[in-house]
């Protein structure tokens, strides 16, 4: 275990990594045609949020680490959301036999 977390790697490095991951997630969200991949992109965005929270918790919040608790909640909710998402996807796939977002067009935008 490394002793000092506020050592060489600055806080900004973590934040930029999270920002990049978030932007990649947003891109995937907009452009994926497979519904499962859209779910994956959302998971990427949530992971970006978690990196943010953990970095702040370690660099700014001292021994209170509220960010870590927040991250635990995010992980919990993300798991529930993924389970529900895949259940809905299965029930839709049974009706339509496709996962292509472009063909989920019974309801027009």
């Amino acid at each position, binding site marked *: 275990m490394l002793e000092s977390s506020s050592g060489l790697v600055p806080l900004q490095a973590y934040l930029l990594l999270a920002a990049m991951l978030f932007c990649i997630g947003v891109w995937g969200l907009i452009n994926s045609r497979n519904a499962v991949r859209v779910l994956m992109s959302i998971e990427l965005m949530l992971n970006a949020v978690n990196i943010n929270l953990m970095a702040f918790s370690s660099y700014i919040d001292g021994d209170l680490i*509220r960010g870590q*608790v927040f991250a635990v909640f995010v992980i919990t909710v993300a798991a529930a959301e993924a389970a529900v*998402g895949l259940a809905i996807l299965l*029930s*839709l796939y049974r009706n339509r036999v496709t996962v292509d977002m472009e063909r*989920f067009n*019974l*309801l027009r*935008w």
Partner: protein
Amino acid sequence: MPEMGVFLLATQAMAAPGELLNLALNAGAIAPEGAVLVAMLATLLVDLAGEQAAARWVPPICYAGLGTALVLLAQQWNAPLEPSFLGAFLADNLAIAFRAVVALSTLLSLLISWRYAEQSGAPIGEYAAILLAATLGAMLLCGSTDLVSVFVSLETLSVASYLLAGYMKRDARSSEAALKYLLVGSAAAAVFLYGASLLYGLSGTTSLQAIGIALLTSPTPLAALSLVFVLATVAFKIAAVPFHQWTPDVYEGSPTPVVAFLSVGSKAAGFALALRLLVGCFGAFDTQWKLLFTVLAVLSMTLGNVVALAQTSMKRMLAYSSIGQAGFVMIGLVCGTEDGFAAMVLYMAAYLFMNLGAFACIILFSIRTGSDRISDYAGLYQKDPLITLGLSLCLLSLGGIPPMLGFFGKIYLFFAGWADHQYLLVVVGLVTSVVSIYYYISVIKMMVVKEPKEASDVVKSYPSIQWSTIGMPPLRIALVGCVVVTAVGGILSNPLFQWANSAVAGTPLLQEAIALGSQRSIG
């Protein structure tokens, strides 16, 4: 404000959670939610005994739970204010008012959904349990004062809503609505979380109150960015244009009773969240968020009411009309005066009755005929005077025709806006109200004016009216109740006014914002 001082002390004392174990949680504040939770668990247990037992026992359990919750809420009214759960929840009058709206909307949605669920073969026990879980999340969202509890209760409401939207699992539309809602909703939640994480990083705390103070002392560009992120999520929840795209699809595809809940309960929780976050937390960016909300309100009123003109499906029309109605409520939010907030609360309460009344009529019509096309309503007054009368009164009230309840709600909102010099908003509101009256009236005209021989095929083969089937009496009670309140409530609206005013008066958060705003306008 003395309560605020105590609250701040509690927040600062949170520095050492280990020492706080002896502090009172003040858990009585969430007793109403406890009643809802007990009802939800009882529903699940009863459901184990089979569908027959569930159909018999689940409704009374739900009524008992929600009724208890409403009574407990009434007892909390004007009670001395203490933050509970160490600053995670605050049962001020604003929270109580919105929680009551949410609980009442669930109660009415349940009353109108039994027949619908049974006839479509959906398991009732799980349906009621998920709807109660959504209620629980929405009620807690109304009073949450901490980013973490805001997030978890928001997600409880959202995940339950996704499940309910997809509850007709043999219907591709329902699944598709659920999938769209889930993907858009989860993305909105991720965006909200990103904003929340930035707020946490800026202030080093998750309490909304403390974040508000930290932002006042150092408003940075990053804070403005997180404001945009958080605001986008709030706008998604209340379906404000341009974050409304999910609304028509989800409303058209989901089971109709679920739409009734989403359009009132979920929206009320969204407005409570907007008040907590924007007024309580982003006081430093007052002008900015008010400007953004002015734009959202103008767009919502215009687009919602204009696009509703072109709809052929009743549910879709009500979806667009609900976008427009949300725009009206936003006028009160932008004002930020005592009257503005009170008008918001009043209009949400009025909207509860008139919108659910309209949905009760639509559900009854679709149970009898299996249709929701507007043209199929032609000539209905010959066959079913009750639906015709109820739907007409509710739609007139939604359009703001005197002397209905909706008229007084709307006029109060416009007066508040005018007094606060929001001329643009009020003018747009008046013009779009006229537009909305046009499409509401055209539905009424379709039902009333058509000659018997012009009636639609659906109406010509209308089944004989029966109220004895299981699940029909509750539907009738809800329908008649909503219509009566909508029609008579306008004349007897004085208690409602007082209620809305005391909701604002009993909320330190809003009082502070009002005082700040009036100082600014004097200085």
